[in-house]
């Protein structure tokens, strides 16, 4: 009996110890001391960097950047880790929870936000006071969060959305690729023409609206203090009403009720939908999947304010080599290295010095070159539209409620109220 009690006690103690792990808090070093070490320390020793899905396509580029860094700082050793595209957030989450983040980590602003909230990231502006002068404001702002003091990442490469049109589908269905819709009302009117001419076989509209569309309708998504969602306004309801009526009229495929963005691009790739949105390099990537469609595509700026997509490099406070980590992040995001990267693929540099590069502002005459220029021009007014507070669960809930409104199973107001209520609960929980 005594032995059984001994075994039970051991199990209970182990469980209690592990409970501590489950509910423990992260390591929070003093930000000033790490920033000071980063600013004044010597760049030497080992430093690790983690990128997101750059191998194998950009292996040579990234290795060249690392070799350049090692040449600039002899004696420094760089350990480059590249994580696959799928499941990256889970990977970063497990690294952060285990205190095992590399010295420099590729984190988009919404991944960096929860880590910054947990005091796990270095305020890079403190370690590098020139940051705000050298990087574009939108990129830097993306790493500053309401309620958190600091800038929690070096902006790296940027992108935005561009409208893409299948000009052949437009022409064959009585629409003029030179008179593209400039507003939602235009879009609905042209979608009606396409439905009538194609007998409902092809669509102009094939995605349901999201927070970006609400923002462009003048709806405030979140309160200024970042503590509650506010997108259940009459303007938002009016926008959803328009989509509901268009859906009822058969101007959108039924798939929009359950599809994500991927569904819209799949329909476009298959030649069933004539409009989609994508980054500046969409035509180039489509040329592999559907080479006959790529030459028929034209591009135009998105309707309203274009969304800003930012990738950046953050530095965990737990880094053992802050000086080398800051130097490496700065090196990778330097104007020269960013320009070289942007020449390889249609992303755009986040440094002010790169803005005058004619490579971005002049097309080579191809439709992909035109799209790149449209994207580059759009970047000037692009904004980070989706608040970083919106997590996976909230995105799913918002999508679901918008689908309910469009299908007519709930009124637009009910759906928006429900989405806001559920998201606010999650925000507070």
């Amino acid at each position, binding site marked *: 009996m005594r032995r059984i009690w001994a075994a039970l006690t051991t199990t209970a103690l182990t469980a209690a110890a592990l409970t501590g792990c489950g509910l423990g808090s992260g390591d929070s070093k003093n930000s000033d001391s790490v920033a000071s070490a980063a600013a004044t320390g010597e760049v030497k020793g080992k430093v690790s960097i983690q990128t997101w899905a750059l191998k194998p396509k950009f292996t040579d580029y990234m290795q060249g950047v690392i070799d350049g860094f090692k040449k600039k700082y002899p004696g420094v050793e760089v350990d480059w880790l590249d994580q696959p595209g799928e499941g990256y957030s889970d990977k970063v989450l497990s690294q952060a929870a285990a205190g095992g983040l590399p010295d420099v980590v590729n984190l988009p602003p919404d991944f960096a936000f929860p880590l910054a909230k947990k005091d796990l990231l270095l305020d890079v502006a403190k370690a590098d006071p020139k940051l705000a002068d050298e990087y574009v404001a939108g990129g830097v702002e993306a790493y500053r969060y309401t309620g958190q003091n600091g800038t929690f990442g070096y902006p790296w490469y940027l992108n935005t959305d561009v409208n893409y049109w299948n000009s052949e589908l437009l022409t064959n269905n009585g629409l003029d690729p030179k008179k593209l819709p400039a507003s939602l009302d235009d879009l609905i009117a042209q979608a009606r023409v396409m439905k009538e001419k194609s007998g409902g076989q092809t669509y102009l509209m094939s995605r349901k609206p999201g927070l970006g569309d609400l923002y462009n309708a003048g709806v405030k998504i979140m309160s200024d203090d970042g503590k509650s969602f506010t997108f259940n306004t009459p303007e938002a309801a009016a926008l959803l009403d328009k989509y509901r009526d268009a859906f009822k009229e058969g101007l959108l495929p039924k*798939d929009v009720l359950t599809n994500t963005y991927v569904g819209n691009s799949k329909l476009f790739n298959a030649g069933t939908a004539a409009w989609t949105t994508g980054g500046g390099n969409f035509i180039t990537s489509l040329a592999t999947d559907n080479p006959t469609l790529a030459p028929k595509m034209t591009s135009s700026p998105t309707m309203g304010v274009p969304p800003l997509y930012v990738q950046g490099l953050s530095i965990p406070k737990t880094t053992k080599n802050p000086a080398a980590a800051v130097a490496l992040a700065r090196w990778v995001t330097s104007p020269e290295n960013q320009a070289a990267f942007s020449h390889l693929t249609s992303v755009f540099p986040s440094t002010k010095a790169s803005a005058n590069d004619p490579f971005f502002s002049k097309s080579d005459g191809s439709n992909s070159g035109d799209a790149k220029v449209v994207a580059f021009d759009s970047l000037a007014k692009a904004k980070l539209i989706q608040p970083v507070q919106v997590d996976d669960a909230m995105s799913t809930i918002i999508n679901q409620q918008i689908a309910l409104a469009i299908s007519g199973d709930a009124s637009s107001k009910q759906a928006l109220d429900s989405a806001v209520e559920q998201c606010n609960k999650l925000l507070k929980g």
Partner: protein
Amino acid sequence: MTHRRWFTPWLLAGPALLWLAVFNLWPAVNTVILSFTNAKPLGGGQFTGLENYGRLLDDEQLADALLNSIVFMLVCLPLLTVLPLLLALLVQRKIPGITFFRTAFYTPVIASAVVVALIWGWVLDDRGLVNGMLQQSGLTDSPVSFLTDRWLLLFSAIALTVWKGLGYYMVIYLSALANVPRELHEAAAVDGASPLRRFWHVTLPGVRPTMMLISVLISVSALRVFSELYVLSHGQGGPGGRDMSVVMLIQMYSRGFNGHLGYASALSLMLFVITLGPMLLLMRLNRKAA
């Protein structure tokens, strides 16, 4: 004769016990603890008492998810208990070429649930094979909303699950049928019992324990349905999220940097309790019948 020390059995069982404690017992205990907190994946979290359990009561999506999971179980249970038995009766005969059919029926079992669901998604899509055939044959004018109607999506997922599970349970029934004494069938035949009566009075009692086991397995796995509904609905849970299962809800709340581990744990425990219900009921029925 060697002297046996008291700790020898513990030493031998130790590694297995440790494994159980770390990978089974501890996660279960941790789930109970987390369900009383507002914990996040990055640590922290405070004791919130019964708040998460209170939230279960006014979660509209949970009501839908529970209904879906229960309908899923109630439809799958009879289909996957009876159809594989009939299939096993068909393929147990030793006739030339029967191995081919046994293999064919078993093939869906070895395919990944995600891959199968993706293929079914293409087949049932508005522009998929089934709708193409229905429209070309003139049976329907417009596509049937297999994947965009709440109930049709749920029943599509049920059809997929039944199709995929038939072979698995068929194999279990085959081994049970092999254990039904041949003499009983022969005696019943000599007494003039028809094939239907022999099935009812000899075969069924012979495979009843297996049938009960299969029923328990099906009810547990049906209540925990995830992949089929997730893939067919592109992770969105159908129109308006009304096709979510309870496991999909758990996944939705627990994933990501900001995962709501407390509420997801409360959902997990609720599902655990619900899963116990049909298990206990079936075991009780089995005892009574025995």
